[in-house]
């Protein structure tokens, strides 16, 4: 290079150096609050292209040609962004250690888990998914059957309903999209198991609380099941289900902002019951016809309108033997008509303000004939609810709501000598307020209160509830909860009198949860105190004598739930165990006694295995429960007799034949164990002074179901082939 050229070059470089070479190098080390290095954090000068990432040790060195007062930004997933003013003057700047603080993250923040099982396709769900609901056990797609594989519940074979922590099935309430389902179960003849009215496929999320629930839920002493229906459907499709007991046809039409689904189902158990032997003597096997319609509409940016309606008629007739007059056979005929409508709108009305409104309507009628006599039970109920939720800050969430329950319950004896109709109407106004306060992302307190007024009872109640959770480590947490719960007395008493008070329960729950990757341990200790339970002297078949609110009781126990999705490849299992001690002095009990719907020990083991080559899933469920107590009027001890222990091994097989065809089969009580749920006795003794008794058992030794589920979508492959070629 000649000196001249060199000089020119140098001067040129000098000329542009301001632009080109006034490099400032900024360095530092990014760490979290515990001093651990954060690798691959993003460090850049705001408004410029100059940026870099930290290395494995958290170290970064950023060279920039920017000058003057600028802002240095540091970002890392899950941590609060840092913006720091910096003067760039062309020299080295070592910022040393820079600490980033963890951002409040709803996914990793502590949540109150006392008494709660959440399920669904959401990330946080730990207990069951909707799919588990369908395949978990011998429940054949019954929501309530599947929940009986969770701790805190007792399997009561002759009922099929939910019995939670020493509570009666009446003390559990079901809500769909926030509003009450007055009659969540199908109707059946006495001592036969019922099923839930809704298919698990309808729901994308579930919250099952066995105690200590939010002030949002009332009129339930024991438990709340809150189901969230699916969002808008995005694909047109046709669903066909063919089962050994019936068929279902459904279709979905979807638009940009709306979808409509409708289905029709017909079930008739006659052919099935002719093939599979039954204990129950059927005059006319159960059959039902149901139709439903579901509509979804997106409104505005975040709003969603959901409307669901269903109509259902079912009927059956059995032949029963009279206990009072052995040898006397009578016909028991049941016709049930049920209509249910649920509408809800949910959306953000302005930033951080969410409004949820809901309305439900239930009409249910059971027409029962016993030979030439009979009675009709009817219920008409509505529930209207408005809830406003406000996120005041990341650390404070508020919720307030108003509810209106209106119901009419009727009991009619159309064929009695003097036609009789008994009914009552009850309106309940409720309101609630609740705050969730995060002291840090590790510690949360939820405090709320609920007010209810019933115009039939002319009583009001105030139910305070408080719970707190503390995260002990990334994977474990402790929750505590305490609250008061109120519920109207059973309708059979309210039909007779309005001079009763609410029944009441106080819940104390302590929960310890470990939720590691793929493994969950949920353990819970609880104590429940029952107050103001309805008690009466004698029931003469028509009138409850000396009816009052002086009943009381208690329940305490331990619930354990362990689920492991990790240890076995292609397999997972869960173990659920409950211990419960529960006594009551209510109804016509002479003293405090163990009631007949609780087993002291309940154990359920579920195992599922996915066979990839066979495209099949095998599910096995084993349940065992210690004997339940029942009362033998021939004995001097009240509720002193024990039934046989319950045990059942069931299995199911799902086979993915094609992407859109699933074959499913399930068998309950594979081993054919003898099942006995207790005894029932005649109300009058025979000539020898003995009350004639009979064991209560299942209606058949086994339940077997085979089905084929077909989904046809409009994604026609042939058309798509044409497009490419």
């Amino acid at each position, binding site marked *: 290079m000649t000196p001249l050229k060199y000089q020119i070059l140098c001067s040129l470089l000098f000329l542009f150096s301001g632009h080109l070479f006034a490099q400032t190098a900024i360095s530092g080390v990014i760490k979290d609050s515990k001093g651990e290095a954060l690798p691959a954090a993003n460090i850049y000068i705001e408004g410029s292209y100059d940026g870099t*990432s930290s290395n494995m040790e958290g170290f970064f060195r950023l060279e920039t040609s920017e000058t003057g007062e600028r802002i240095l930004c540091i970002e890392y997933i*899950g941590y609060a962004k840092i913006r720091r003013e910096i003067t760039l003057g062309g020299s080295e700047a070592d910022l040393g250690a820079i600490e980033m603080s963890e951002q409040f993250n709803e*996914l*990793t923040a502590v949540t109150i888990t006392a008494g709660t099982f959440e399920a669904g396709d959401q990330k946080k769900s730990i207990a069951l998914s909707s799919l588990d609901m369908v395949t978990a056990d011998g429940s054949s797609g019954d929501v309530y059957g599947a929940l009986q594989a969770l701790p805190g519940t007792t399997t009561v074979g002759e009922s099929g309903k939910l019995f939670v922590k020493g509570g009666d099935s009446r003390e559990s309430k079901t809500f769909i999209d926030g509003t009450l389902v007055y009659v969540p179960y199908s109707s059946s003849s006495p001592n036969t198991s019922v099923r839930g009215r809704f298919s698990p496929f309808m729901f994308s999320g579930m919250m099952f609380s066995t105690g200590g629930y939010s002030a949002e839920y009332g009129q339930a002493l024991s438990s709340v099941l809150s189901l969230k229906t699916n969002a808008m459907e995005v694909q047109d499709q046709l669903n066909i289900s063919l089962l050994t007991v019936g068929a279902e046809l459904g279709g979905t039409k979807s638009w940009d902002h709306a979808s409509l689904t409708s289905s029709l189902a017909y079930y008739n158990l006659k052919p099935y019951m002719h093939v599979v032997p039954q204990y129950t003597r059927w005059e006319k096997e159960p059959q039902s016809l149901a139709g439903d319609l579901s509509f979804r509409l997106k409104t505005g940016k975040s709003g969603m309108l959901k409307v669901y309606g269903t109509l259902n008629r079912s009927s059956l007739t059995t032949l029963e033997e009279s206990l009072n007059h052995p040898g006397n056979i009578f016909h028991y005929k049941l016709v049930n008509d049920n209509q249910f409508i649920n509408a809800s709108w949910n959306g953000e009305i302005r930033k951080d303000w969410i409004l949820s409104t809901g309305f439900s309507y239930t009409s249910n009628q059971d027409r029962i004939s016993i030979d030439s006599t009979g009675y009709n039970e009817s219920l008409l109920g509505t529930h209207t609810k408005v809830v406003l939720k406000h996120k005041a800050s990341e650390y404070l969430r508020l919720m307030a709501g108003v509810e209106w329950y209106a119901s009419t319950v009727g009991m009619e004896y159309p064929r009695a000598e003097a036609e009789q109709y008994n009914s009552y109407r009850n309106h309940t106004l409720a309101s609630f307020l609740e705050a969730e306060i995060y002291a840090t992302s590790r510690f949360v307190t939820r405090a709320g209160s609920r007010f209810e007024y019933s115009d039939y009872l002319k009583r009001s109640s105030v139910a305070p509830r408080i719970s707190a959770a503390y995260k002990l480590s990334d994977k474990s947490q402790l929750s505590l909860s305490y609250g008061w719960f109120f519920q109207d007395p059973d309708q059979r008493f309210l039909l007779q009198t309005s001079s009763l008070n609410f029944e009441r329960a106080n819940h104390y729950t302590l929960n310890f949860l470990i939720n590691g990757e793929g493994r969950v341990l949920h353990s819970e200790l609880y104590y429940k105190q029952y107050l103001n339970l309805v008690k009466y002297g004698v029931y003469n078949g028509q009138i409850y004598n000396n009816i009052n609110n002086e009943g009381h009781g208690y329940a305490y126990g331990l619930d354990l739930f362990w689920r492991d999705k990790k240890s076995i490849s292609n397999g997972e299992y869960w173990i659920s165990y409950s211990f419960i001690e529960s006594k009551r002095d209510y109804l016509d009990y002479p003293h405090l006694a163990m009631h007949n719907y609780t087993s002291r020990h309940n154990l359920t083991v579920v195992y599922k295995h996915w066979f990839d080559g066979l495209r099949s899933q095998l599910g096995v469920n084993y349940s065992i429960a210690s004997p339940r107590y029942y009362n033998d009027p021939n004995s001097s001890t009240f509720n002193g007799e024990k039934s046989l222990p319950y045990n059942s091994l069931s299995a199911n097989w799902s086979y993915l034949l094609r992407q859109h065809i699933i074959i499913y089969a399930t068998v309950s009580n594979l081993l054919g164990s003898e099942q006995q749920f207790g005894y029932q006795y005649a109300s009058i003794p025979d000539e020898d002074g003995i009350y004639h008794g009979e064991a209560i058992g299942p209606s058949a030794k086994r339940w077997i179901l085979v089905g084929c589920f077909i989904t046809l979508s409009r994604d026609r492959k042939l058309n798509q082939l044409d497009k490419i070629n």
Partner: protein
Amino acid sequence: MKRTTLLLGALLITTLVMGGNDRYIEKMRETLQLFAGCSTPEDYQDLANRFRVIANVESDEWLPLYYEAQCYILMGFTGQLENELRDSYLDKASALIDKMLAMAPNEAEVYVMKSFYHTGYLVVNPPQRAMSATPLIHEAIARALAMEPDNPRALFLRLSNEMGTASYFGEDTSPYCDQAAALLREWDNYELESPIHPNWGKQEVEGIVKSCGE
């Protein structure tokens, strides 16, 4: 020497002349080249960071968001990581896609990325998520194809989904091989709007064609 002078001169001129948009395109081109060297989640995080910096400056452009989302989805596919972490990457991608959908609602490529996101979401836990995610995967591709029937990436994703399903159910995959070959032949006929518009997928289709030939 001459060479050094020329080079320096060129550098000076580019620096001087290059204004707003060209600088953006150049920066994007430069960053896009880094895709080739990425393999670990850390590599993709670093690349996502770079796109983030560009997106911060070019707040009207959807392409930096697009590539940033792509990085996070690819991170979400990393099977060795804990599911919670994979989900946190996918959440990041989902937020970016929502932002893009608001900015460029008529871009087929945005829906292609949306479909890719739902695939990533499904893959984290197929037994639990297949039922809810599958229709969303199909729907996003259908939307992309309705906007641009010849979009090669949308066609590729659909093809690979269908082919995967067919082979899982032991069906004949040869029709898909023909489709893949046809798609590859047509691939370069698709005109890119700019040098920094999405241009990935060809290699993957070549892979399908190659595996078909074996």
